[in-house]
C-alpha cells in the first residue's frame, strides 16, 4: 500500500472514530450544560443502546426482515435502540438526579456513579459477562480509493453520525425547544420567568443526550461486531476527555473535541506503538486544559451565573 492510500485509509478511520466520540461527548456536554452534572452513567447508556440495537437486529434477522428490507431494518435498529435509551435516560434523571437538584454537587455526582455501577451490573446479569456477537450485516463489501479499502458499513455509519449531529445542531439553534434548552442552560430562574417549563426541558435533554450515546453504541457494535457489558467504560472516559477538551457545555465543542480525539488516536496508532494510544488522548486533553482551561470552545465558568 502506498503512502497516499495509507493516509486515506487512516483518515477514514479517524473520521469514523471521531464521529463515535463526538456523539458520546455530546451527551456529556448537553447534560452538563443544562444541570452542571457529569453524568457518569452515560457510558452505560452507550452500552445499553448497543444491546438494545443488537436485540432488535437479531429479532429482525430471525424473521428474515434484514435481508428483504435492509434500510428499514437499520431505521428500526437505530430508532428503537435510541428510543429505549432515551426512556432509560429520562428515568435515571427522574430517579437519581431530579431529587438531588438542589442538593450539593457532590451528592449528584455520587448518585451518577452509583447509577453507573447499578446499570453496568444490571447489564452483566441480564446479558452475561462475555462478548455478544453482532450479526455481520454489512459484510466486507466496499470500494477502494486507490489501495485504501472503505467498507459500506463505515460509509453508512459516518453518514449517519454526521446526519445526527447536523439534526441536533438545527434543533438547538433554530427550534423553539432548542432555544428553550439553551436559555435553561444559561439561566434557569430567568428561563422559568419567561414561561419555559424547565423540568420538561431537562427531560428532553436527558432523552437526546443518551439517545445519541445509544446511536454511538449501536455503531460500535455494528462495526466491531461485538458488545460487552463493560465496553462503555473506555469510550466513556475518552468521550469525557473529548467533551472537556472541546469545552464542557459547548455543543460544537463536543463535536470538535470528539473529532480531535479520534484523529489523535488514529494518528498515534498508525505511526507509533498502539499500546500507548489511550495515553495520548489524555496527554492531549491535559495540554489543551493547561493552555486554555475552559476548553477549546468553552466559556469561562463564571459567566452567566447569577
Amino acid at each position: 500500500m502506498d503512502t497516499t492510500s495509507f493516509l486515506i485509509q487512516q483518515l477514514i478511520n479517524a473520521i469514523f472514530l471521531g464521529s463515535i466520540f463526538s456523539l458520546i461527548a455530546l451527551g456529556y456536554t448537553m447534560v452538563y450544560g443544562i444541570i452542571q452534572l457529569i453524568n457518569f452513567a452515560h457510558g452505560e447508556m452507550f452500552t445499553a443502546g448497543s444491546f438494545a440495537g443488537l436485540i432488535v437486529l437479531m429479532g429482525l434477522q430471525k424473521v428474515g426482515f434484514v435481508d428483504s428490507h435492509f434500510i428499514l431494518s437499520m431505521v428500526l435498529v437505530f430508532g428503537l435502540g435510541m428510543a429505549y435509551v432515551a426512556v432509560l435516560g429520562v428515568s435515571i434523571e427522574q430517579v437519581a438526579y431530579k431529587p438531588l437538584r438542589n442538593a450539593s454537587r457532590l451528592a449528584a455526582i455520587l448518585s451518577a456513579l452509583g447509577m453507573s455501577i447499578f446499570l453496568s451490573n444490571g447489564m452483566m446479569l441480564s446479558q452475561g459477562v462475555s462478548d455478544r456477537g453482532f450479526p455481520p450485516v454489512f459484510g466486507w463489501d466496499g470500494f477502494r480509493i486507490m489501495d485504501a479499502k472503505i467498507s459500506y458499513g463505515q460509509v453508512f455509519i459516518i453518514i449517519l453520525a454526521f446526519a445526527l449531529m447536523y439534526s441536533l445542531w438545527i434543533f438547538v439553534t433554530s427550534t423553539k425547544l432548542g432555544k428553550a434548552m439553551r436559555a435553561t442552560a444559561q439561566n434557569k430562574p430567568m428561563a422559568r420567568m419567561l414561561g419555559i417549563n424547565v423540568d420538561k426541558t431537562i427531560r428532553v435533554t436527558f432523552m437526546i443526550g443518551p439517545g445519541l450515546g445509544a446511536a454511538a453504541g449501536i455503531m460500535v457494535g455494528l462495526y466491531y461486531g461485538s458488545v460487552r457489558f463493560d465496553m462503555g467504560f473506555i469510550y466513556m472516559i475518552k468521550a469525557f476527555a473529548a467533551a472537556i477538551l472541546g469545552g464542557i457545555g459547548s455543543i460544537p465543542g463536543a463535536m470538535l473535541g470528539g473529532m480531535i480525539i479520534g484523529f489523535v488516536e488514529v494518528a498515534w496508532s498508525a505511526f507509533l506503538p498502539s499500546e500507548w494510544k489511550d495515553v495520548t488522548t489524555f496527554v492531549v486533553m491535559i495540554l489543551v486544559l493547561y493552555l486554555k482551561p475552559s476548553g477549546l470552545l468553552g466559556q469561562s465558568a463564571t459567566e452567566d451565573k447569577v
Partner: protein
Amino acid sequence: MAELLLKNITMKFGGLLAVDNLDLEVPSGKILSLIGPNGAGKTTVFNLITGVYKPTEGTITYNGKTLNGLHSNKVVSRGIARTFQNIRLFNSMTVLENVQVGLHCRTKSGAIRALLNTPFLVREEKEIEDKAMAVLEFLGLESFRNDYASNLDYGNQRRLEIARALATKPGTLLLDEPAAGMNPKETADLMDLILKIRDTGLDIFLVEHDMRLVMGISDMITVLDYGQKIAEGTPKEIQNNETVIEAYLGSGGKK
C-alpha cells in the same frame, strides 16, 4: 376592576418577617410604583407574585384567579412578566433569540409535531421571528437583532430585558429597578418608554429608587417599610406624607 390583587400577604423567612400583612392592587392600565428604603421587602413582593416564593399567608389573584402555588412559568402564561434588578440576559444568544425565547409560552408547543412536520416548523419559526421583530421595533432595537446580547451597551441591555418580557404578551409588567445604573439621559428615555408601554394598555408595577422617575410617571405609589405598607397615594400625596419622610430620613429629619 383591578387585575392584580394581593390580599393579607405575609412572608416569613425563618424568624424574619419580610412582608407583613400587605394588601395591594395594581390598577388596570395604570402605573403603580412600590418604593421604600433598602430591605423594605419590595423585591420580595415581586418574587411572591411571580411564584419564586410561596407566601406564608394570604392570597394573590390575577383577573379573579388565584396565583398561589403556581410555578413561575405558569404565572407568565397567565400574563405577568417581569424584569430583574440585575440584568439577566442570555448572553450567548443574539438579541433576536433572546426575544424569541420570551415568545416561547405564546406559541404552540408540539415538539413532536414540529420535528415531524417541516413545513409546520418553518411556518412557526417564521411567525416567531416576525413577532420578535415587531417587539424589537417597538423598543427601537431592531438594528441590533444579530448582535450578541452581551455586546449591547448598558441602556440597550435594559431595553432588551423589557423587550423579552413584553414578548411574553403580558397584561401586567413588573419592572424591578429598571433605572438602576442609568445616566440621566437613559433614565429620561426609559420614562418615555414606560409611558409608551402603559399606553398600549398594560398595567405596570414598578419598583424603583430613582425618585425623579417614580414621581414623574406613577399614577399611584405604595410605600413599604419593614414589610408593612406605610402609605399609599398619588405622587403629590406621597411627597408630603410625614410617615414616608420619616421612614426615608429617620425621625431626626423632623423639625
